C-alpha cells in the first residue's frame, strides 16, 4: 500500500470520526454549560474543529513520511529505511492515539475558554471544574477511538513490510507488546472517557440542583416575609433567623429579609448581607417585569427572591447555602471513576488474557516445533472453548498430528523401511508420497548402479595394475635414457674442451702466419730496394760503357796517340760489361728471391686461409658442440621430466588402483546400504 493512500485513508477515517462525533460533543458541551448565547461559540467551535482536523492530518503525514520513502517507486528500500518505516508504523497507534486524544482535549479546552471570554457570566468556577472533567473525558475518548482505529488502518501496511523484510532476510525491530495490555489500555480509555463525561454531567447537575434548591428556599423565605409583613426591623430580623433555623438541615447558612419600596430603597432595617444591594441589577429588571421572581446563579452561594407586596412595597429575601456539588457526590463519583479506572483495564486484561493465553500456547508450541523440532514429544494443546481461538487450537492439533505422522514416516524411511504408507490430504502428504516414490526409484537405481560400479571398479583395478607395471618399466627405461644422455653430455663437454685447444692452436698459427707474411713483405720490400740499387749500378755501368765507348771512339780518332787510351777504354768497357752482367745476375737473384717471397706469401696466405678455416671450423665445432651439449642437457632434462612424469604416472596409477579398491569397497558398502531399504516389491518378492 502506498503511503499517500494510507495517509488518505487515515485522514478520511478521522475526519469522518470528527464529523460524526464533534457535533454531538458540541451540543452536549453547550447543553452542559447552558450556553444560551451560542452564536459566538458556534462561530469559534467549528474553527477549532477544523484546526484539529488539520493538525491530525499534518501529524499523520509527518509520522508516515518514512513509510512513504520506504514504499516509494525508487527501487527496493534499504534495510535501515525498512526498519525505520516499520518502527514508525508500530509506534503510530500509540503516538497518534495520544496526539488525537490531546487534540480533542485542547479543542474543547479552547472552546470552553472562548465561551468564557466571549459569553461573560455564563461560566463560573464550577464550570471550570466540569470543564476539566470534560477535557479529561474527551482525551480518554479520543484515545479510545484513535488507538484501535489507527492500529486497524495500519495493519495491512505493517503486514506488507513484514513480508518484504522476511523475503529479504531483514529482522524487524518490534517490541513484544502483549495483546491483553493493548486491550487493557483501550478498555481504560473506553471506561474513563464516558465515566468522566458522566461525572462532569452529574457534577453540573448537582451544582444546578443546589442552585435550584437555594432558589426555592429563597422563594420560601420571601413567601414567609410576605405572609407576615412587618415594618419593624427586629421582627423582620427575627423572621429571617427563624427561617434560617427552620431550614438549616437543608444547608441554609444565612437568611436575610428586607422590605423595600418600588425603587428598592429599604423600608426595614438593612441586614448584614443586603439582598437589594447584592442583586440590585437583577432586581431592577425583575421588579419592572413581574410581581415575583428568583435569582439563583450556579456559581454563587446565594439566591435572591422578591415578591411585590403592593404597589409601594417589595419583599426581598436572600438565602445562603454552600455552593457546588455535595461532597457525597464528589466522593461517590471519584470512587466510581477510580473503580472504572481499575476495573475496566483489569477486566480487559483478564479477557485479553483469556484470548492471548491460548495464542501464547500456540506460539510457544510453534516455536518449539520450529526451533527445537519437538513435535513428536509434544502433547495435544487443550481446547477450552469453541471460539476462534479454540478452532485455531483444534487446527493446530490436527497439523501437529499430521507432522507427527510425517515424522514417524520419515524415521521409518531413515531406518530403511520404504514400505511406510503416508496418509492424509494436502500438499505436504502428497510431497512426502512423491518423495517416497522417488526414493524407492532412486534406491533401485542406486542398487543397480552400485553393482555396475563394483564391476567397473574391479576392471579399473585390473587395468591400473597393468598400467602401473607398464609405467614402472617405462620409468626404468627413462632412467636408462637419462643416464645415457648424461654420458653424452659429458662427452660433448670433452669434445668442447678439445676443440677449444684446437681453436687456440689455430689462432696461434694464424698469428704466426701473419707475422711471417709481414716478414716476407719486408723481405720483398728489401729486395725491391736492392733492385733499385742494382738499377742504379746498371745505369752507372751503362754510362761507364758508353763513356768507355766514346773514349774508344775518341782514341780511335786520335790514332796512335790514342792507342793506350783505347786499351784503357776497352778495359773499362769490359769492366762495365762485367758489372752489367753481374748486375743482371744479381737482379735475377733478387727477382728469384721476390718470386720466392711471392710464392711464400701465397703459400702463407693459403696457410693463413687454412688457419682461418681451421679457426672458423673449430669455432663452429665449439658452437655445434655447445649446441649439442645444450641440446643433450635439454634432452636430459626432458628425459628427467618424462621420468618424473612417468614416476608420477606410476604413483597416480597406484593411487588409481588404491582408489579403485576403495571404490570397490564403497560400491560393496553402497550395495549393502541399499539392501537395508526394504521396498514393498522386495517384500512381496
Amino acid at each position, binding site marked *: 500500500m502506498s503511503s499517500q493512500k494510507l495517509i488518505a485513508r487515515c485522514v478520511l477515517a478521522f475526519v469522518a470520526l470528527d464529523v460524526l462525533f464533534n457535533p454531538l460533543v458540541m451540543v452536549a458541551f453547550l447543553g452542559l454549560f447552558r450556553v444560551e448565547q451560542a452564536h459566538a461559540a458556534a462561530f469559534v467551535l467549528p474553527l477549532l474543529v477544523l484546526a484539529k482536523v488539520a493538525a491530525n492530518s499534518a501529524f499523520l503525514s509527518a509520522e508516515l513520511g518514512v513509510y512513504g520513502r520506504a514504499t516509494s517507486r525508487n527501487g527496493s528500500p534499504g534495510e535501515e529505511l525498512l526498519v525505520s518505516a516499520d518502527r514508525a508504523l508500530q509506534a503510530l497507534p500509540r503516538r497518534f492515539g495520544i496526539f488525537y486524544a490531546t487534540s480533542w482535549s485542547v479543542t474543547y479546552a479552547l472552546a470552553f475558554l472562548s465561551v468564557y471570554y466571549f459569553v461573560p457570566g455564563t461560566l463560573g468556577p464550577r464550570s471550570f471544574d466540569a470543564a476539566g472533567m470534560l477535557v479529561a473525558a474527551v482525551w480518554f475518548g479520543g484515545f479510545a477511538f484513535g488507538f484501535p482505529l489507527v492500529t486497524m488502518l495500519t495493519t495491512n501496511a505493517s503486514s506488507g513490510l513484514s513480508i518484504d523484510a522476511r523475503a529479504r532476510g531483514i529482522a524487524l525491530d518490534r517490541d513484544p507488546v502483549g495483546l491483553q495490555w493493548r486491550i487493557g489500555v483501550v478498555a481504560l480509555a473506553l471506561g474513563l472517557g464516558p465515566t468522566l463525561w458522566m461525572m462532569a454531567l452529574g457534577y453540573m447537575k448537582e451544582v444546578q440542583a443546589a442552585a435550584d434548591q437555594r432558589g426555592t428556599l429563597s422563594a420560601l423565605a420571601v413567601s414567609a416575609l410576605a405572609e407576615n409583613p412587618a415594618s419593624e426591623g427586629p421582627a423582620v430580623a427575627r423572621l429571617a433567623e427563624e427561617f434560617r433555623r427552620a431550614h438549616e438541615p437543608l444547608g441554609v447558612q444565612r437568611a436575610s429579609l428586607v422590605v423595600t419600596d418600588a425603587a428598592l430603597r429599604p423600608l426595614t432595617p438593612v441586614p448584614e448581607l443586603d439582598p437589594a444591594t447584592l442583586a440590585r441589577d437583577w432586581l431592577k429588571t425583575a421588579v419592572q417585569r413581574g410581581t415575583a421572581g428568583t435569582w439563583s446563579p450556579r456559581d454563587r452561594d446565594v439566591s435572591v427572591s422578591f415578591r411585590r407586596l403592593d404597589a409601594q412595597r417589595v419583599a426581598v429575601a436572600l438565602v445562603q447555602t454552600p455552593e457546588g456539588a455535595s461532597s457525597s457526590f464528589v466522593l461517590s463519583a471519584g470512587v466510581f471513576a477510580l473503580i472504572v479506572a481499575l476495573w475496566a483495564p483489569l477486566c480487559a486484561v483478564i479477557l485479553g488474557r483469556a484470548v492471548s493465553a491460548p495464542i501464547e500456547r500456540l506460539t510457544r508450541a510453534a516455536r518449539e516445533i520450529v526451533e527445537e523440532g519437538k513435535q513428536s514429544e509434544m502433547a495435544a494443546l487443550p481446547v477450552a472453548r469453541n471460539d476462534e481461538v479454540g478452532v485455531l487450537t483444534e487446527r493446530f492439533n490436527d497439523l501437529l498430528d499430521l507432522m507427527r505422522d510425517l515424522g514417524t514416516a520419515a524415521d521409518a524411511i531413515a531406518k530403511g523401511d520404504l514400505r511406510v504408507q503416508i496418509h492424509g490430504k494436502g500438499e505436504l502428504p502428497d510431497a512426502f508420497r512423491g518423495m517416497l516414490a522417488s526414493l524407492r526409484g532412486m534406491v533401485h537405481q542406486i542398487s543397480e548402479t552400485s553393482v555396475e560400479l563394483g564391476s567397473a571398479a574391479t576392471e579399473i583395478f585390473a587395468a591400473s595394475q597393468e598400467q602401473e607395471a607398464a609405467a614402472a618399466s617405462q620409468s626404468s627405461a627413462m632412467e636408462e635414457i637419462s643416464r645415457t644422455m648424461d654420458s653424452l653430455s659429458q662427452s660433448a663437454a670433452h669434445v668442447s674442451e678439445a676443440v677449444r685447444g684446437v681453436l687456440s692452436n689455430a689462432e696461434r698459427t694464424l698469428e704466426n702466419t701473419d707475422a711471417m707474411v709481414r716478414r716476407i713483405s719486408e723481405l720483398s720490400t728489401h729486395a725491391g730496394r736492392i733492385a733499385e740499387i742494382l738499377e742504379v749500378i746498371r745505369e752507372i755501368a751503362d754510362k761507364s760503357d*758508353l763513356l768507355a765507348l*766514346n773514349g*774508344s*771512339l775518341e782514341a*780511335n780518332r786520335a790514332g796512335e796517340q790514342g792507342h793506350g787510351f783505347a786499351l784503357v777504354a*776497352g778495359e773499362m768497357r769490359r769492366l762495365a760489361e762485367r758489372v752489367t752482367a753481374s748486375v743482371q745476375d744479381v737482379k735475377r737473384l733478387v727477382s728469384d728471391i721476390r718470386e720466392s717471397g711471392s710464392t711464400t706469401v701465397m703459400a702463407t696466405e693459403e696457410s693463413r686461409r687454412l688457419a682461418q678455416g681451421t679457426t672458423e671450423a673449430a669455432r663452429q665445432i665449439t658452437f655445434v658442440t655447445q649446441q649439442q651439449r645444450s641440446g643433450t642437457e635439454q634432452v636430459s632434462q626432458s628425459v628427467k621430466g618424462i621420468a618424473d612424469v612417468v614416476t608420477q604416472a606410476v604413483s597416480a596409477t597406484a593411487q588409481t588402483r588404491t582408489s579403485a579398491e576403495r571404490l570397490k569397497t564403497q560400491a560393496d558398502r553402497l550395495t549393502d546400504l541399499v539392501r537395508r531399504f526394504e521396498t514393498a516389491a522386495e517384500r512381496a518378492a
Partner: protein
Amino acid sequence: MPAVEPALKFVVVGLAPAALALPAARVLHVVAERDFEGQALDLRALGAAQADAGGHVLLVGRAGDPVALHVCGGIALLTARASEVLPLPDVVSRPAWLSHVIAPRGLPSVFVLDLARLAASRSAGCPWAAHAVHPEI
C-alpha cells in the same frame, strides 16, 4: 818483312745478321737515348736484335752539324782488316743506303751504313724517318 794490312774500326749496333756497322771514325759520340733531346733518324728497326738492349743515339757526320741516328741494340767496336770490308754493288747499296759489307774470312756478316751519302744528302730521301727523341725525366 811483310806489309801490314791496315785495319778498319767500326761501330756495330746489334747482332748479326741484323747488325749494322758504322765507320768508327765517323761516329762522333754515342749518347743514351734517355739523355738525348732532338730530332733523330729512326733506325731501331735495323738493329733490334736484342730485345733487352737499350736504345742509343749515335751522332755522326761533321762535328758542328752531326746527324743523329736512333738505334736499338748492343753497341760494340769491331776491328776488321781492309780486305774483309767489301764494297757493295750499286744495285744493292743504293736503295738500302749501305756502302760495304764486312765479311770476315770471306763470310759477309755485317752491312756498313753509307754514312758518306747520308752526310752528303743530309738524310734527304733516306728510308728512315726522323722523329723526336725526348730525354727521360
